[in-house]
Structure formats: structure tokens, C-alpha cells
């Protein structure tokens, strides 16, 4: 049963409250995942620390080089409607627009999504493909965790108890790269059976791949980069053969589980199908004259 509810206005106040109440407390941002877990009795915090008035967790900043900082409490909707993000990292916007359903995107936050780290979430693989970093604050200060090290297991992250995610930093993507996010799910509101994020840069007209990053979600115990598939594609001329080969390699890099939405075998196959589709779409978009990110 929840005994008390707080609305701190600074990160520092939030961290103090977390230190004071320890394991009995939970932060709550949009609450779109936490409140479900509480109703299912998976977690039972006695103290809820709302983040909605912590100004430092909101806002999107872009520096002179195009590097981005996204406040952890940025809602999915604010993310995909942000002109700065739509221009700089449309891949993340595509992923954010696929989370849950309309009402969930209105309140749910990007930070909450990655901290919750549920299998089949959408933003994590897009952020991995964007080489994002998580900035966390705890009693001992601030630290930055590259996203490849952030996701440590089902519903687990590298954050320590008492820490709060403050912002997500994304380095400016290389110019001319194109992002495609594909989500395989049966219904709106579902988590992804397979989520594929591709960031691709092509030399034209040769179609030689000069930048490739592949983020995959829903297909292993954590969202991951398909590094071997990337290595295969890097420097190659993008064509059907190399894309097929890369798809096979990616299929060997994942470790899906079977559940009611699909068997492990099916998920593995879908990695191949959706990765090929995403690369083709990205390659098409990247080949258009005057194409931009």
C-alpha cells in the first residue's frame, strides 16, 4: 500500500528522497508501466516520488554540433513531435511513435521506458543504434553509462538503487544517414515481437555502405546491437546478396524466447525478415538525390 507521495522539484531533492526511503520508494514518471506492475503486485512501493515537477528532467537541447540531450521525463509524444528530434534523430521519433497506444504515449516517458527495460520495448534499440548514453544521478554524483552497457537483463539496468535517470545524450548522427524503425506486432498497444532499428549511410551512386548500425529488441534478454551483421555490411555495396547474408548473421546473434506471441524460432526468422526490410527501406531513402537524415 502506498503510504505517501512526493513531488520534488529538483534532481537533488529526488535523490535525497530515494536515499531516505531506500527500497520502499519508487520514482514515478509517466506511470504507464509502474502503475500496471503495482496493480499486478509485482512491485509494492510504499513511497512514490513523482518526477513530473522536476524541471531538469524535461526538455530537449541541441548543441552547436548537433549533439542532443533529451530529458529523461520527455514523453514519447513530446519526443516524436519535437522539431529538434524530428530533424536530428528521426529514427528515435519513429520508435517513440510506436510505443503502446495514443494515451500511453501521452504520459509515458522515454526515460521510464528504458529504465523499465521490458522485452519488446521500442526506444531502446533505436537509442542503441544512435550510440546514446544514459546520464544518471545518485548520492555519489552523476555518471554516464553508454547504452550498450545500460541494459543488463529482463527489467534490469545498470542503474544502482538510489539513482535516477536524468537525461539521454545522443551524439549527432553522421550527416546523410537515414534511420528506419520497424516494429513487428499484431495489434496497436502490443510490445514488439521483434523491433529493428537501422541507421544507414550510403555513398552514392556506388551504394557502398559507409555507416551501418543495427539495434534489435524483443529477441534476447536485452536489446542489442547486431555487431557481426554490421561488420559484414560496413564497406560493402548494398545489394540483395549482402543484405541476405547480413540477415542470416543477425539471426545468429540473437537469443529469443518463446511466448504466447511467438516461438523463439519464429522470432529468429522475423529478425531476418524485418532486418532485410529495414535495410532496403533505408537504402532506398539514402539513395534519393539530396536525401537528408
Amino acid at each position, binding site marked *: 500500500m*502506498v503510504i505517501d*507521495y512526493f513531488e520534488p522539484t529538483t534532481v537533488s531533492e529526488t535523490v535525497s528522497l530515494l536515499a531516505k526511503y531506500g527500497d520502499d520508494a519508487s520514482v514515478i514518471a509517466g506511470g504507464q508501466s509502474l*502503475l500496471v506492475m*503495482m496493480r499486478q503486485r509485482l512491485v509494492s512501493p510504499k513511497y512514490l516520488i*513523482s518526477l513530473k515537477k522536476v524541471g531538469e528532467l524535461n526538455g530537449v537541447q541541441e548543441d552547436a554540433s548537433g549533439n542532443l540531450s533529451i530529458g529523461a521525463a520527455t514523453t514519447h509524444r513530446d519526443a516524436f513531435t519535437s522539431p529538434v528530434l524530428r530533424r536530428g534523430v528521426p529514427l528515435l521519433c519513429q520508435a517513440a511513435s510506436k510505443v503502446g*497506444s495514443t494515451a*500511453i504515449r*501521452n*504520459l509515458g516517458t522515454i526515460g521510464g521506458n528504458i529504465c523499465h527495460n521490458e522485452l519488446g520495448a521500442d526506444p531502446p534499440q533505436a537509442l542503441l543504434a544512435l550510440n546514446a548514453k544514459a546520464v544518471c544521478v545518485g548520492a555519489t554524483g552523476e555518471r554516464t553509462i553508454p547504452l550498450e552497457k545500460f541494459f543488463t537483463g529482463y527489467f534490469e539496468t545498470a542503474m544502482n538503487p538510489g539513482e535516477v535517470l536524468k537525461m539521454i545524450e545522443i551524439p549527432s548522427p553522421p550527416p546523410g544517414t537515414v534511420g528506419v524503425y520497424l516494429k513487428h506486432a499484431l495489434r*496497436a498497444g502490443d510490445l514488439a515481437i521483434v523491433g529493428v532499428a537501422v541507421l544507414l549511410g550510403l555513398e552514392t551512386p556506388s551504394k557502398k555502405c559507409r555507416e551501418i548500425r543495427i539495434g534489435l529488441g524483443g529477441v534476447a534478454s536485452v536489446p542489442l546491437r547486431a555487431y557481426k551483421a554490421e561488420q559484414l555490411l560496413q564497406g560493402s555495396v548494398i545489394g540483395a546478396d549482402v543484405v541476405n547474408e547480413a540477415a542470416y548473421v543477425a539471426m545468429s546473434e540473437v537469443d529469443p524466447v518463446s511466448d504466447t506471441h511467438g516461438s523463439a524460432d519464429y522470432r529468429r526468422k522475423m529478425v531476418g525478415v524485418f532486418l532485410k526490410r529495414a535495410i532496403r527501406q533505408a537504402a532506398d531513402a539514402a539513395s534519393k538525390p539530396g536525401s537528408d537524415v
Partner: protein
Amino acid sequence: MKRPIHLKINAQELEVVVEAGDLLLDVLREKLFLTGARRGCDTSHCGACTVIMGGKLVHSCLVLALSAVGQEISTIEGLETDGKLHPLQEAFIRYGAFQCGYCTPGMILAGKALLDESPRPTEEEIKRSLDGNLCRCTGYQKIIQAILAVAEGKV
């Protein structure tokens, strides 16, 4: 920990006593007797609990009552003015867009939130805005038609 709070619902300031963990849905239904919002699934998928908060569609089963303080909340009960139905309500009747009526408040509010922001949506945009509202009876066709009819000024 009981706290008296003020909630702004359908343009009225209402005082209610809540516990820290109370959901907006339960406060609406059990303390304010605004039973248009329903507890349909308990897993946040069905949208029968949908209300409009701060101009945005939200699932009231996923909002703490305490975090709704200071926000303008619209429920289905607030749509009619002086006994006159809102065009969306008229349209739902005219187009036969409900059978059991359980999902209907949520559907109408989803339509309202969309039209308030985007008065001329396409059919695709309407479908997408209903993505968090499930209906087991109608097959959605007439719901979409009703919302489209209002958007096109036919109602």
C-alpha cells in the same frame, strides 16, 4: 495517508479526499460517482477508462489521483451542455456506433481529443487515435464513421 485535494473536472472544482495510491479512475467512479469511465481490463489495454486530462487522452487507470491535481479533466459526463448533446454524442446515436455501450465513453472522448487538436483528420488518423480503445461489439466501422461525420461537419 488521506489527503483532501481539489480536482478540476468538467469545468468544476471538486473537493475529494484521496489516499496516496488512489487511481484517478477509482476516484472518479467511487468518490465522485462519474461512472462513465470503466475499469474494463485492469491491464491498461482496453481504454474503457479513458478520459481527457490537460487536453490529452489518458487512461485514468494509469493516472494517480494526486498527479491529476491542477489539470483540467474532461469525462463523458461533461460533454453535453445544458442538456444538449455534443456533436460526437449525436453522431454516435445517428450512426449506431455503439451496442453494449461499455467502450463508448472512451471512444467518444478519443474522438473529441483528436478533433480538438486536428479538426480535419483522415480516416487513417482517426483509426490511429483509437488505437488504445477496444470494442468487442461493433467492429469499429460505425465508430470511425461517426467521428468522420463530425469531422466533415455532417453532424
